[in-house]
């Protein structure tokens, strides 16, 4: 389909049916990929990527897919421009009837209005194009607003009007201002313009150098769409002058070939909301009618815009893919910060355990007093508490390091990552539980060992447990405990018990740190940033390129 470039030829069968299914499939696959792309991390390029994703999606849904599916559908010409450029007046004048409200208060057009020939009504009444917009129909005599149902977003409504005066096969859409104060309107305007076969950019004598319309013109050039500019509201004294200057600006921007129409400012133009005389817009009307009624011209108009949009995918998809890759890279950096912090804390904890840091402070004093002035239970209590403090300390230190590292990452400001609830208490609670479980299991091991001794003078299991714990956690200082243990239950048993307890300890410590790390990573995982979208977007694009 659309094999012929608009410049080469325009046979009436430019759109061939045989390739179309594959192309459409490729296109809808691409559409799904674009729809699935998410940019949750607030990176520098993310808002732009999000906007261009929405824009691209809208253009695919509103224009490209329906256009390729139904090449015989009427051409849609969207009238866009700045506030007060006289878009509505222009549409009204082209139609010859007041279909869109014009006035002096800005912004005038809040609800986009689509005008078409009654025969074409069925093309637009369904959700074929602009599926996001709710359709409303109003009686022709009712030009005022208040046609919205309560609760309906006024910006997401499309009013469909019919007029006999328009030639069949042409639909005009009066879009809201592209620089409206209402940002929803701006977005909608851009979306509507992107849905057009013919872009009609309206500017005025006072505005033709404004920055905002020029952005639009540059976009039109980038997409290589069928573009018409209308220089509206030009006082007749300066027509030649302004028109010349505007032409010069257009030529400078590389848009010299664009058809240009000039509409003079007439007393009845905007301020009264009246209609311009037919002669004022005759040129434009003739041009539009020609585009619609001459099959060749029609084909060219359609193919050029469709081609332009398809071509623009070549640069827009890699842009999205790049943004997706940036997202993934940022997520990786965040994850790496977490992993790095927990890994180094894990190493530190292991080192401290080996050095006997747990047998210090309270626990050390208890051990010194053991067994004369201290019971085995008290010694175990002190050791357990000391161990859980060590783990808690490691976890909070890791969190602090992560916070530090994340503060330098713009991506860490994502909702859910930044407003982490202070979880220190619950971490303390979780660690306490884990360490107490370790103690219980240790005591069970000790009981097993003591039961095997099967002697009358078998020592108290709790004493054995305390000695094992001390020898495990005490480092050099705890060596005495090991010797004492060997004396009580035999060297072999002591060694076995110590090994088992050591393995148990390592297991518990690993689990605690792992759980905490996972908890820290959970919100990031929930954002679901993967490397796949990048590859998928590019793949969808290349499939589409192949099908063209």
């Amino acid at each position, binding site marked *: 389909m659309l094999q012929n470039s608009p410049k080469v030829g325009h046979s009436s069968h430019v759109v061939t049916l045989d390739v179309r299914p594959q192309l459409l499939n490729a296109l809808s696959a691409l559409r799904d990929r674009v729809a699935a792309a998410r940019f949750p991390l607030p990176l520098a390029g993310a808002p732009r990527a999000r906007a261009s994703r929405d824009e691209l999606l809208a253009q695919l849904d509103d224009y490209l897919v329906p256009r390729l599916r139904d090449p015989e559908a009427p051409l849609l010409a969207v009238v866009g421009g700045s*506030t007060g450029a006289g878009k509505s007046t222009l549409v009204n004048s082209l139609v010859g009837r007041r279909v869109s409200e014009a006035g002096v*208060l800005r912004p005038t057009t809040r609800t986009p209005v689509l005008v078409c020939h009654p025969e074409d009504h069925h093309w637009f009444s369904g959700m074929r194009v602009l599926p996001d917009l709710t359709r409303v129909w109003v009686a022709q005599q009712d030009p005022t607003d208040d046609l919205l149902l309560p609760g309906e977003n006024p910006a997401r409504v499309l009013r469909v009007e019919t007029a006999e005066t328009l030639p069949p096969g042409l639909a005009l859409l009066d879009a809201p201002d592209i620089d409206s104060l209402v940002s929803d309107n701006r977005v909608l305007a851009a979306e509507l313009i992107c849905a057009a076969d013919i872009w009609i950019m309206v500017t005025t004598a*006072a505005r033709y150098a*404004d920055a905002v319309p020029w952005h639009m013109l540059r976009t039109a050039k980038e997409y290589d769409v069928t573009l018409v500019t209308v220089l509206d509201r030009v006082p007749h004294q300066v027509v030649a002058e302004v028109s010349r200057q505007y032409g010069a600006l257009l030529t400078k921007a590389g848009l010299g070939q664009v058809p240009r129409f000039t509409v003079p400012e007439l007393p009845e133009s905007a301020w009264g909301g009246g209609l311009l005389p037919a002669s004022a817009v005759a040129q434009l009307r003739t041009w539009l009618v020609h585009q619609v009624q001459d099959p060749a011209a029609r084909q060219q108009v359609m193919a050029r815009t469709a081609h332009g949009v398809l071509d623009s995918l070549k640069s827009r998809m890699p842009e999205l893919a790049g943004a997706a890759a940036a997202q993934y890279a940022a997520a990786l950096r965040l994850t790496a910060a977490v992993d790095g912090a927990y890994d180094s804390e894990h190493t530190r904890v292991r080192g401290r355990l080996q050095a006997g840091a747990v047998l210090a402070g309270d626990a050390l004093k208890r051990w010194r007093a053991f067994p004369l002035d201290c019971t085995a239970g008290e010694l175990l209590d002190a050791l357990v508490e000391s161990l859980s403090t060590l783990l808690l300390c490691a976890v909070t230190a890791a969190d602090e390091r992560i916070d530090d590292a994340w503060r330098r990452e713009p991506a860490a400001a994502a909702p859910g990552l930044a407003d982490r609830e202070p979880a220190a208490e619950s971490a303390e609670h979780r660690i306490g539980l884990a360490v107490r479980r370790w103690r219980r299991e240790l005591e069970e091991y000790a009981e097993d060992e003591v039961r095997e001794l099967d002697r009358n003078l078998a020592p108290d299991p709790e004493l054995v447990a305390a000695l094992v714990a001390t020898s495990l956690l005490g480092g050099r200082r705890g060596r005495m405990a090991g010797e004492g243990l060997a004396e009580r239950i035999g060297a072999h048993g002591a060694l076995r018990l110590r090994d088992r307890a050591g393995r148990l300890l390592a297991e518990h410590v690993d689990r605690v740190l792992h759980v905490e790390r996972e908890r820290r990573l959970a919100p990031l995982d929930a954002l679901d940033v993967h490397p796949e979208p990048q590859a998928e977007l590019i793949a969808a694009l290349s499939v589409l390129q192949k099908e063209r």
Partner: protein
Amino acid sequence: MTAVTDQDHTERADQPGDADKAGAAENPPSKASGNASGTACGNASPNASEGESVDDARAHARVPDGDSSSRRDPRADPRTDSRTDPRTDSSGTWDDGLIARRVDETTGGNQYAVMDSRTAAPPTVSPLVYDGPLRSRLEALRELVGLSRTRLDSRTLAEAGRVLDEASARRRLSGQHTVVAIAGATGSGKSQLFNALAGVAISETGVRRPTTAAPIACSWSDGAASLIERLGIPPRLRRRPLPTGDGDSQLRGLVLIDLPDHDSAAVQHREHVDRILALVDAVIWVVDPEKYADAVLHERYLRPMAAHAEIMFVVLNQIDRLPGEAAEQVLDDLRRLLDEDGIALGEYGEPGTTVLALSGLTGDGVGELREALGQFVAERAAPARRISADVDIAAARLWPVYATQRRTGLSEQAREEFADRLADAVGATAAGEAAERAWLRNANRACGTPWLRLWRWYQDRGEPTTGRLPSRTQADEEATARQRVEQAVRTVADRASAGLPTPWAQAVREAAVRGSQGLPEALDELSVRAGVPTGRPPRPGWWPMAVLVQASMTILQFLGGLWLLGQIVGVMSPNLGVPVLLMVIGIVGGPLIEWGCRMAARGPARRYGLEAERRLREAAAGCGRARVLDPVAAELLRYREVREQYGRVVGAGS
């Protein structure tokens, strides 16, 4: 200026001339249209001779401002340079000849302006004086910046620094002048209004967009040269208004700046506007019926400047293009939009933005603006108001780095918890308990029955030793639990920094961490010094007595036993009662005494243990206070000071 009317017939005659000259400088003829007439008649007829225009230029154009004329180089002297100044001809934006001739033709009093600048008394520029509250706010802001420079990054403070710089720069300059900029979108009629206020076509108007490329200044009285200098407007773009007696006195002290547009595709125009808007005392926003609702105007300029409402005028120009009551409607809509932007409107005598409708073309409403402007300038309050609003904005921007959500500071409870954690780290509780038990054990041993002691001694001999005996003598390395110290410091830092703005919280945390370096080692050392002294605990005075009684009880047992033995042997007369009684007293009394002693020893043992614990705890707490709590408290104090300064910056404004 899409003017459709054909007014100013009187001006027609002179237009072709200047148009011609402007045309020579690559400008389209219609660019240099007249004062209030946007009518561009492209048929320029060269009726004005070159010589004439230059003569006139010498007379009026480029009149330097009073005080600067003396020190400016001769090149700037109009009498010597008008003819040869290449900039005037090549600038292409503005034609000196036009003004001169127009002044000549419309008033004929072109000498007046020159005389004015020549005969003006030696420049009496009295610098601007800020009133008390503003001065103290600026002072507070300066203090604030100084105090927080080490804590905040320079980017955060840049805005405040800029405001201070501008305030002091403005203060050195004339207080009798008010610099008012005319800003607006392209084609809204800024230059037209500028010319209408000045009474002469100073600034070029035209249909070419954008028209004005560089800002132009116009001063109504002398002494404003340095003010204009500050805006970076070169001397060739400084003008004087048409000296009409009435308007001149009304607007005395006004320095009007015509700005380029802010919304055209020419980016450097926007840069000009942004730069100058930050420096002027007041702004007149010119909007027109077509563009009054432009997003770029409201979102980029009006909303951020809402705090400057008192020094803003919003003027709806080109009302001649609106039919009937539409002008009123549009004006109301404009008011609504401004209200939505958060700009206070100066209605009903309240301070705020003045909103006017006028037509620069027909002159409708220009008088009102002139009047309002005259009153505004006469008040001479604008510079101070502008600076005050700047301070407001800077303060509002600094809000997140100074404001707190709740009460801050280190609570007594947090301090106690910190001490408790440190005590845990050195093991004060355990040490105390151990000391108490050891004391009790010793008491029991001392006051126990000799039989019991004998048995114990025997037991000790058989018992395998645990690790305690040899290790008791060796000095412990790292006796303090590092992790507990670390955790304690972290907790107390978190508590202290809770609710503080991020940079200050960071500073507090850093102070705590810095203080905690070496804390564990200090605690190690201290626990050796303040720990339980090794060797025997002190013995109370009643112990020998108890030992004596215990011994006498044993002697009684022996006595009774011997007596009985003697009776059995037959050495002594048989008397069962007394020896049995003695033995029973001895046997029962010994444990009784032992029990009594244990009861009696409990109290002193407890005291002894508590004393040992207290010693350690206090030493640890003292160490922690000196190393961690004091620096943290100092940091908090510093914050509180800064907060107070900030309150002064903000408070006086509200």
